């Protein structure tokens, strides 16, 4: 039996058959089919299970709002849960599986929940599962969690690529139905830059689902002609399979384009989807409308569908859910479905219209004033029960029921900036309010203009107005003659009755649940939603909110608009996380910055470490070293004994020039710079305005009006920003110019007793590096290796005789090779960030772990650096009492009493005896390392009143890892406290 419910015609290509499978069964469909249309054509109505009661469910809509027919597509890392069968385009070899059922869709064990539905009412879980206490996490919750959820992820990485993109346009038109197409034609012909986006793979909207004519053309043909004209315009960009999912501030829209979901896998290097950010000057929302249902007892059976959807399946996809379809409606639009089905040869046993004055029907029996009060059929509808106008009961056998309760304009995007829709009595629906997002207008069914003519006229008018705002002129085009029937509808939301009548099909929220919520005082819409989970399904209430609001209004005796509406938030339809992330995932999560010596270091087999976005060499293992500590200890020892080289390019460098450069530095540094001589470097401490240490570094004076400031690697960006703030906002009349030169220079620290000897071999002979000519804290411009320009700074982080030498970055690789070659005779070693860290701890220099954003100059032992003679950022607030107490934390060294003991950074300090708790906390270890120089672990620590506690013994408490170590408080300057080496 193939395609038993396939009709003739439609916009599918019946000459192109496609093979597909659902739950392992093979079927055939045609090009242009969705999974839903193809399954219906094949006689399959059961497509899913509901969330709570696991009731059998079939497709109800033909669009992205589908709440029932959710399936899993593909497998492995590409397994995609919760895909709406209504929008999943068929391709050859397409595989889908049903979800949220076990062991099979037909026989789902959890359907037992339905038997207990009386207990599982709205919010039942708030009232039970409280005893015994421990059972929640151990028993109740695991059961609930395993029963909940819809589809599943495999946990494997998604192998597909996702792009991002940016578009700029005059007018963004959202939706390519009659309103959108006419708006696009109007704006496009006038020469505006237009983007027309539609979520469907075929533009035309309802025109593709209806049998109306526009002028002398069938609607779908007119749409195709319009699309062809638009495609010929350079200024119009047509985007199919593109959902405008969010309206953000100032005309920015988010658009998801599904580039490759309609094929098995994207081609290599090509994206699956693209997330576009559209910058629009004006936007016209032509998003159409969504049909709503009428609730009645057991209205959730497979086969009960929206009337407009049934019509769309018949007209566009030449598919029908059954050969016998009854209609249940409160409005004239439902009658169209009857007429179209009859025209397609489908039997319509009855049109059940709640209105006693319902219009006549040709080719089917009209039951005016009747209501559907129940249904039968376990896995699919077999029969509906009616109460006739006379009060008589009657049963009708049918495999599908097409229900129409009227149409709701798709106002969602008008509410994304918290605009509220307003009530329209004629439509008994919400239409866009007055508070639209900036630059947005609405046309067509989304505005409540439900006729084709209204849509065409509205689209054209909106485009003319939008262009007018932009100073462009467009003429109203001649509109094709089109249907202009007014809406005729009697509001009707649910059939009274005792049984369960579904409002939210996915989440199993029934009229009874709304009544219970009301009874328990959850009457506000927000409370109702949260208490019953109504509207929280994957359709975000598109198919359910209105019905529930109406029921609540009935309960409270208020009107629907008084009862309220919930807030629509982005996204309009769910957006894959992959697309939101784009290419910034995995290794590309952040850009990677490489140092000038990277290539060379990689050749040496260096281990690299992420430092912010930089990759830095962490250590350089030599043959025979199989533990990192061996390498690091060696690097430290070799440097301290002879000479070592470290790439320090990552430190921020800011060029500061101007007549007032010195005065400016005086303001941003806590210590004084005005009198720093040309050719000298000074250590500087920057405070935040709240008096906390912000960053430290050096400033070198290259000329009277020229400094180069260095920052820590981590703070380079912030320091620059703050300096610009000071320059532009605080002291705008100082003559200062700033620019970053971090990347322009490759800079290496050359440290150790043989540093000068090594450098002398590289620096051109005319430059005198002797201690007299180039003393500690000197700086100057030199040349190296026969004329390459360089800068030399005699500064030291390691505490050794040390220099930092900089060359234009392109020569950085050459320089490290030259330095290493020149250092061979001294057994030079490159050292990485680990050895750098060890040496700075040995020397007691504060770094990021100490400058942690809560420490003051006083805490760091640098209190005297804060000048009292000048204003500077942070000066005044650094004097607050609480930051200057007697027992303020002070930076000290800690050294284990037993040299074999470790010093875990992050340990807290406690008295040698007594309790170990927060009340007795004396401070904490900020940084620690094994010092090969001292042969023991050492640490830097902040200790209360630490400066006066030298020699005292304390305990390092590390209850986290169960260790305690006895330490002695010592000076933070473990090595060469007098600084003789660096001045030598």
């Amino acid at each position: 039996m193939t395609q038993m419910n396939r009709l003739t015609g439609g916009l599918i290509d019946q000459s192109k058959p496609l093979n597909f499978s659902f739950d392992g069964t093979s079927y055939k469909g045609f090009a242009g089919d969705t999974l839903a249309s193809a399954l219906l054509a094949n006689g399959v109505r059961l497509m899913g299970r509901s969330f709570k009661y696991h009731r059998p469910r079939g497709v109800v809509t033909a669009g992205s709002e589908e709440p029932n027919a959710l399936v899993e597509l593909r497998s492995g890392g590409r397994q995609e849960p919760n895909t709406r069968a209504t929008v999943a385009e068929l391709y050859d070899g397409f595989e889908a599986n049903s979800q949220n059922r076990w062991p099979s869709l037909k026989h789902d064990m959890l359907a037992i929940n339905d038997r207990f539905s009386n207990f599982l009412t709205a919010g039942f879980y708030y009232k039970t599962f409280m005893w015994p206490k421990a059972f929640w996490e151990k028993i109740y919750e695991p059961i609930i969690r395993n029963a909940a959820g819809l589809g599943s992820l495999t946990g494997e990485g998604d192998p597909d690529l996702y792009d991002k993109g940016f578009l700029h346009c005059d007018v963004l038109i959202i939706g390519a139905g009659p309103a959108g197409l006419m708006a696009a034609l109007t704006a496009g012909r006038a020469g505006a830059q237009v983007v027309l986006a539609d979520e469907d793979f075929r533009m035309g909207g309802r025109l593709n689902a209806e049998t109306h004519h526009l002028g002398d053309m069938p609607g779908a043909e007119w749409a195709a002609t319009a699309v062809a004209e638009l495609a010929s315009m350079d200024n119009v960009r047509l985007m199919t399979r593109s959902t405008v999912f969010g309206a953000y501030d100032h005309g920015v829209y988010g658009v998801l384009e599904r580039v490759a979901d309609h094929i098995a896998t994207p081609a290599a290097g090509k994206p699956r989807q693209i997330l576009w950010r559209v910058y629009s000057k004006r936007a016209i929302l032509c998003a159409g409308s969504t049909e709503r249902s009428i609730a009645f007892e057991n209205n959730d059976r497979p086969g009960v569908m929206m009337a407009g959807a049934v019509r769309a399946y018949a007209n566009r996809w030449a598919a029908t859910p059954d050969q016998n379809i009854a209609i249940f409606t409160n409005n004239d639009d439902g009658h169209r479905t009857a007429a179209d089905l009859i025209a397609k040869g489908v039997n319509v046993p009855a049109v059940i219209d709640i209105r006693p004055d319902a219009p006549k029907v040709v080719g089917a029996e009209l039951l005016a004033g009747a209501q559907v009060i129940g249904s039968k059929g376990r896995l699919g509808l077999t029969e509906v029960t009616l109460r006739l106008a006379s009060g008589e009961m009657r049963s009708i056998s049918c495999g599908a029921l097409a229900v129409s309760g009227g149409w709701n304009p798709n106002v969602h995007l008008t509410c994304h900036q918290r605009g509220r829709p307003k009530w329209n009595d004629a439509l008994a629906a919400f239409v866009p309010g007055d508070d639209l997002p900036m630059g947005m207008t609405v046309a067509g069914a989304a505005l409540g203009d439900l006729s084709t003519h209204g849509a065409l006229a509205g689209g054209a008018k909106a485009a003319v107005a939008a262009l007018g705002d932009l100073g462009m002129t467009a003429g109203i085009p001649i509109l094709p003659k089109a249907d202009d029937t007014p809406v005729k509808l009697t509001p009707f939301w649910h059939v009274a009755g005792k049984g369960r009548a579904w409002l939210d099909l996915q989440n199993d929220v029934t009229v009874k649940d709304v009544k219970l919520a009301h009874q328990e005082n959850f009457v506000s819409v927000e409370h109702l939603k949260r208490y019953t989970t109504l509207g929280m399904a994957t359709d975000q209430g598109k198919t359910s909110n209105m019905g529930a609001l109406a029921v609540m209004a009935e309960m409270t005796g208020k009107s629907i608009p008084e009862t309220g509406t919930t807030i629509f938030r982005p996204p309009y339809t769910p957006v894959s996380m992959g697309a939101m992330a784009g290419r910034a995932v995995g290794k590309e999560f952040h850009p990677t910055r490489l140092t000038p010596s990277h290539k060379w270091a990689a050749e040496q087999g260096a281990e690299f470490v992420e430092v912010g976005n930089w990759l830095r060499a962490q250590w350089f293992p030599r043959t025979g070293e199989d533990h990192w500590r061996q390498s690091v200890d060696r690097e430290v020892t070799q440097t301290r004994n002879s000479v070592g080289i470290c790439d320090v390019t990552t430190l921020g460098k800011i060029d500061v020039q101007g007549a007032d450069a010195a005065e400016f530095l005086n303001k941003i540094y806590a210590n004084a710079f005005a009198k720093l001589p040309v050719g000298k470097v000074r250590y500087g401490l920057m405070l935040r305005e709240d008096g906390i240490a912000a960053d430290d570094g050096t400033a070198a004076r290259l000329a009277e009006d020229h400094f180069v400031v260095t920052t820590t690697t981590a703070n380079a960006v912030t320091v620059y920003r703050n300096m610009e703030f000071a320059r532009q906002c605080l002291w705008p009349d100082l003559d200062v110019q700033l620019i970053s030169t971090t990347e322009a220079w490759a800079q290496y620290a050359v440290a150790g007793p043989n540093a000068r000897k090594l450098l002398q071999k590289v620096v051109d002979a005319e430059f005198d590096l002797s201690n007299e000519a180039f003393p500690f804290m000197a700086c100057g411009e030199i040349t190296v290796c026969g004329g390459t320009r360089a800068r030399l700074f005699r500064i030291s982080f390691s505490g050794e005789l040390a220099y930092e030498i900089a060359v234009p970055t392109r020569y950085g690789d050459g320089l490290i090779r030259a330095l290493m070659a020149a250092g061979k005779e001294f057994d030079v070693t490159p050292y990485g960030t680990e050895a750098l860290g060890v040496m700075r701890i040995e020397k007691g220099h504060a770094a990021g772990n100490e400058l942690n954003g809560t420490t003051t100059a006083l805490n760091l032992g640098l209190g005297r650096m804060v000048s009292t003679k000048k204003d500077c950022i942070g000066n005044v607030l650094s004097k607050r009492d609480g930051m200057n107490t007697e027992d303020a934390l002070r930076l000290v060294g800690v050294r284990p009493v037993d040299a074999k003991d470790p010093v875990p950074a992050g340990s807290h300090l406690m008295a040698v005896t007594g309790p170990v708790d927060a009340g007795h906390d004396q401070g904490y270890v900020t940084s620690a390392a094994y010092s090969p120089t001292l042969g023991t672990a050492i640490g830097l620590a902040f200790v209360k009143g630490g400066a006066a506690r030298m020699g005292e013994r304390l305990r390092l408490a590390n209850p986290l890892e169960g260790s305690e170590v006895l330490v002695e408080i010592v000076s933070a300057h473990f090595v060469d406290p007098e600084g003789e080496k660096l001045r030598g």
Partner: protein
Amino acid sequence: MIINHPLLGPRDAQEFTYLGDATLINRPYWLSENALRDFHDYLHLRDNPAGEHRELWFHEQGDRSWLVVTRNTVTHKISSVELACDVARANGRSTGREEAQVA
């Protein structure tokens, strides 16, 4: 969000770094009698209006201008954008020289 840069025209707010209330331009005098109170209030206390708010944005991924943006914090509507250095001068900021040294 789009910020209409006075020099560059409309730019995505993503290119900017936000600081806060534009009163941060009005840094107090460090030697005033109530300097501690003045600096405390300057740095910490905010009108935090639900409505028009003058605020500082830095065009970090652009021309490195600090801007004063007047934006409604309820609707996000931006009513004016100025270069912060112009605002600073208009507020009387200059070189700070007159108050830089101990009197």
